[in-house]
């Protein structure tokens, strides 16, 4: 529990779970939730490096704070897009959004 790699592995696993979630979910909100997981994985990494490696242990915390801020913004935008998309598609199924199809 006191080694850097433990935290890094935890973060990696969380990140992979997030990726898995993003890819397999068919609803947008599910994807958003999975993305939050990935962001958290990143936060953990920052905090871990901050704890074990960084010369100034404040910087990592600040970054984590910023990530939270970004996450809030991202969630707001994502939710509004979801709502808009829902109005358009009458579905939350992401696979219906295919306008970029070649």
């Amino acid at each position, binding site marked *: 529990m006191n080694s850097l790699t433990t935290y890094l592995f935890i973060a990696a696993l969380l990140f992979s779970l997030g*990726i898995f979630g*993003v*890819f397999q979910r068919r609803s947008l909100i599910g*994807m958003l939730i999975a993305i939050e997981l990935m962001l958290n994985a990143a936060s953990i990494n920052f905090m871990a490096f901050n704890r074990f490696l960084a010369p100034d242990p404040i910087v990592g915390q600040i970054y984590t704070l910023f990530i939270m801020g970004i996450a809030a913004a991202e969630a707001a935008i994502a939710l509004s897009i979801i709502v808009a998309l829902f109005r358009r598609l009458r579905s939350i199924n*992401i*696979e219906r*959004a*295919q*306008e*970029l*199809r*070649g």
Partner: protein
Amino acid sequence: MTSSWFQDPTLLAAALAALLPFVTFALIMIFTRPYPKLSAAISIAAVSVSLVCAIFLLSSHWHLEKPIQYAAKWIISGDIYIPFGFLLDQLSLVMLTIVAVISFLVQVYSLGYMAGDPGFARYYAFQSLFAWAMMTMSIAPTMLQFYVFWELVGLASYLLIGFYYEKFSASEAGKKAFVMTRFGDIAFFLGLLLVLFNFGNLNILDMNSVDVTARMSPALITLSAILIFGGVAGKSAQFPLLTWLPDAMEGPTPVSALLHSATMVAAGVYMFARIFPFFSHSAAAMNTFLAIGTITMLLASTMAMVTRDIKQVWAYSTVSQLGFMVMGLAAGSYFAGIFHLTTHAGFKALLFLCSGVFIHEFETNDFFEMGKYGGRGLKVPMVCMTVAAAALSGLPPLSGFFSKEAIMGGLAGLHNPVWLWAGLLGAFLTAYYSFRLIFSILFPRKIEKTHQGEHGGHGHGHDGGHHHVGIYWVMAWPLIILASITLVLGFFHTPLENFLVGHHGGAEAHGGHHAWLLYVAVGLALSGVGLAWLEFGRKGASQVGFVEKIEPMSRLFANRWYIDHFYRRFLDYFIYGIVSNLFTRNDRRVIDGGIDGICRATVGSGWALSFLQSGMLQYNLMVMFAVLALVALYFFF
């Protein structure tokens, strides 16, 4: 240089004679096309100036010592130098005069013949174009200039044959004439190029000098001579290329008289004479020409024996006489060939112009019909035509007699008697078919006084009493002039020979050496006339020729020995059907198809790849991450 243009009367006259008609052509085409009378006036004025100049040149150089040459730069390109100029020697002066005289007469005659035609101005423009091309060709100093104007003459011929372009047969005939002569011209051009590359010069005088043998091998001379003769064959309708000339009769009759009997078709023979010394360097080539001339003469004579169309008869006879001239030249009698060319120009133009009067009068080309409707009532043309036909048959004392005798003399001088016999047979046939026509008109089996020409706007009275008298006489005067030329020209045999041959040394075989030949030839001609009398002339004659009684033979002759069929088939099946079609398909299917195939393959692969762009974010991301991860794995481990 510029000042001498006006100081030297010879040069001025030559330039005027040759170039004035071109100015006329341009003037008519650009400005005076809507004014037919003015156009005709300009044209005739120009050609009469040409005539005066030609006669002035001929008379002032009657005692010409050596050829006069003028040349100015036309084109210089690298090794090629093409001057534009004039070469005045005996031969070109004679030819120039012939062309000028006949052009003048025909243009005057056309005033009557073409009166009221919607294309009157255009007709005179083309006539001027022809006169320009022909005269400039006659006095060309180099073979390249000769070739250039030779082609232009062909163009004028095309335009004039297809003059009644609304008639399909006329435009078809024009096209045929152009393409067929083009065929010969290609050979001519290749031959010229051979000479140019190996001899280095196309100046006519140089080509005629003995230098040629020094610089070119005999085989090369033979090859180039035969190739150049291709041009003669095309233009003068010699053996394989002879069928365009009868079709060319679709043009207005004066045109037939001018171009397709007297002058243009004789250009081939003229060219033969022009570089006669060059040709005579190769015995093999000369023999070939002799054979071609003979075949042409006999084939055309047989064709003339069965046709009912007056112009066709004279057309075949033109081909046949041209063959005769070629025979004469190829037999080595330079003078005989040219003399026959000269006399032939006179009497054949006369024949056509007379026929023109008949055609104009009766609006038919069938001479049996003409006889039926009272053709003999037209006194002046009838007499003139009989005189001309007699000249054509070689009856004394008309001009044709002298020139034919000269050729016979030349033929008799050859080792192989076959040529002489063929010539005599030709003379017999000529007399037969000419008088077949004359007798058919003179002594028709029944006469109907009312002829078709009476109705419509084209009715003319016979000899007078009508408002068309003026036109009739406009047409008659040239006939009378030509007839008198035909009558007297024979007696200028010796002066002309002295003038022409003085420089070619005494190598000529004289026609008069063989007295027996003279009697045989005249006898054969008379027997030809007699046979025609038996079958067509005497009272109660059946008016069916002996050839027409033999069905296969007459069919063979009437179909022109199937030469035309062969060409037609060749063109339709081989050129259009196979080559052209195949190439077109190749273009559409193979080349275009290939390119389109490449395009389609591109589009298709794009379409196939578009399935990857499903537009689904998740898959895109999935691929992105997988690739990223794999790349990272690859790089780190």
